[in-house]
């Protein structure tokens, strides 16, 4: 699923410009890192793509559908094409690991047998099957992150969006998470990752889009976290 942003500006009331005049094309199956300092507009960009907010100016087109013109009744069907991992995981603590994943499929009216099959397979893929009866608060940070990824994967999304997926994790766990993201991308899913993790960006070189004060400062194929002359 390809994503096109043309002249996108987002101004929050009263006059905070989070993004300004963004032009960005992301092709189907691409892996893109969004980097930049806190407040540079990374999360706003992701929220525009999930259509939690709409741009003040400009157009966002995803798979030939202009998000601005999308009817609210069509929004749930669009969001089923997206897998989103939040910065704070947003797991449901009163549900077990299995239920956290199954709940997504149930929300879209999937048959119980199919729910069981898909949820089991996805939990197995992220290595959490043995912990399926645990509650999120009984899991480590890395396990919670893997659960959040499993929940985002369960709908087989065309676009996978992750906001700081390795934020508070140690290096080893971060590498595990990165491997998961790469395997999702290898299956043909477009992956968009907002990150501050310099090590991962440099170790797993992919396209890097750097934002600065709401504008695109740099867009590099197989880029690094910092441009070479910044060292």
């Amino acid at each position, binding site marked *: 699923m390809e994503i096109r942003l043309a002249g996108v500006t987002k101004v929050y009331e009263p006059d905070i410009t989070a993004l300004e005049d963004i032009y960005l094309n992301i092709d189907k199956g691409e892996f893109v890192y969004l980097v930049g300092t806190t407040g540079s507009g990374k999360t706003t960009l992701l929220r525009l793509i999930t259509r939690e907010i709409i741009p003040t100016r400009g157009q966002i087109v995803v798979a*030939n559908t202009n998000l601005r013109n999308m009817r609210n009744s069509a929004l*749930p069907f669009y969001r089923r094409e997206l897998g989103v991992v939040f910065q704070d995981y947003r797991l449901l603590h009163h549900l077990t690991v299995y239920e956290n994943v199954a709940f997504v499929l149930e929300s879209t*009216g999937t048959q119980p047998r199919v729910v069981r099959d898909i949820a089991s397979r996805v939990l197995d893929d992220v290595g959490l099957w043995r912990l399926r009866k645990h509650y999120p608060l009984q899991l480590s940070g890395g396990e919670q992150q893997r659960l959040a990824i499993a929940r985002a994967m369960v709908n087989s999304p065309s676009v996978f969006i992750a906001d700081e997926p390795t934020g508070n994790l140690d290096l080893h766990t971060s590498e595990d998470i990165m491997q998961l993201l790469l395997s999702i991308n290898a299956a043909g899913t477009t992956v968009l990752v907002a990150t501050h993790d310099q090590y991962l960006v440099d170790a797993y070189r992919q396209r890097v889009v750097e934002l600065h004060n709401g504008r695109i400062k740099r867009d590099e194929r197989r880029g690094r976290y910092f441009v070479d002359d910044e060292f």
Partner: protein
Amino acid sequence: MAELKGTSGEEGTLSMMSFKYIMRDTMRLLTRHWGLSLLTLVTAVSLFFLLASSALFSLNVRHFVSEVEDDLVISVFIKEGEDASNLVANLQEVDFIKDIRVIPPEKGLEHLKAKIGSQARAVTLLGENPLPWSVEIQVIRSAFINPLVRDLLSFPDVEDVVYAGHLAEKLTKVSAVLNRLSLSVLMLAIIITALVLYNTVKIALYTREKEIGIMLLVGATQTYIALPFVLQGMFLGTLGSLLAVSMIAGAYPSVIEIIKSTLPFIQVIDDPVLLLRFYVILVGTGMTLGWLSSWFAVHKYIVRACCPD
């Protein structure tokens, strides 16, 4: 380029499976905060009991007033030498008159004798019949009596009009006050019940705020998210009214017995078909109230949560 799958699809159509999940979620909502559900239910039962009692009281007042009104008669006495035909011809055009009975002097005398019993001889002592032609009129409601009497007194053939004017006036006033009072109680009970149900659903919404946010982001439809809350409100409204109706239906026959034995002149409603209809309407009101208040609570919240700005 590939089109976005399913974006042409309309939400609102729910699969059987979604409906099962919705029913399960409704049960979860009711049991997760069972203390709150119980409190809402007890409040709803109390308010519906108040609502049903005041409605039943109002119905009985109306019934009683209409029974008394049925017995109210205006007696019109015609001037000597005239008969009642002119007056009757005029009265037949009046639509609020229920019954007109013409009483010739002989018949009037018979009635009088029957009424005064042992003192009837006093009347025969006069020799000739002193009574004129008279007309007895019944109206459909006591409120029409006074204006009609005023018209009758201005009629040239009419000598005098005798009626229970004071009673008619009092009855009209008491009936209006009681009706207004029970209507106020009824409205108050409806408003409080709606607010309590609205509040319960709102609290349930806030406790599931995070869950709803995630559901919206993973593509759950508004209907799928909103329906368990609407069903929760409907369930509490229906059960509340059903329990209140059961209590009223159980106690009402005993109340009738007590009234009949202590105040036998008061007519109360004891028609089972009418009562059943009343109970069904009450349960329907509970269900509708539950549905409306929860729908208002959910609609505003879900629309705000899912529609980006």
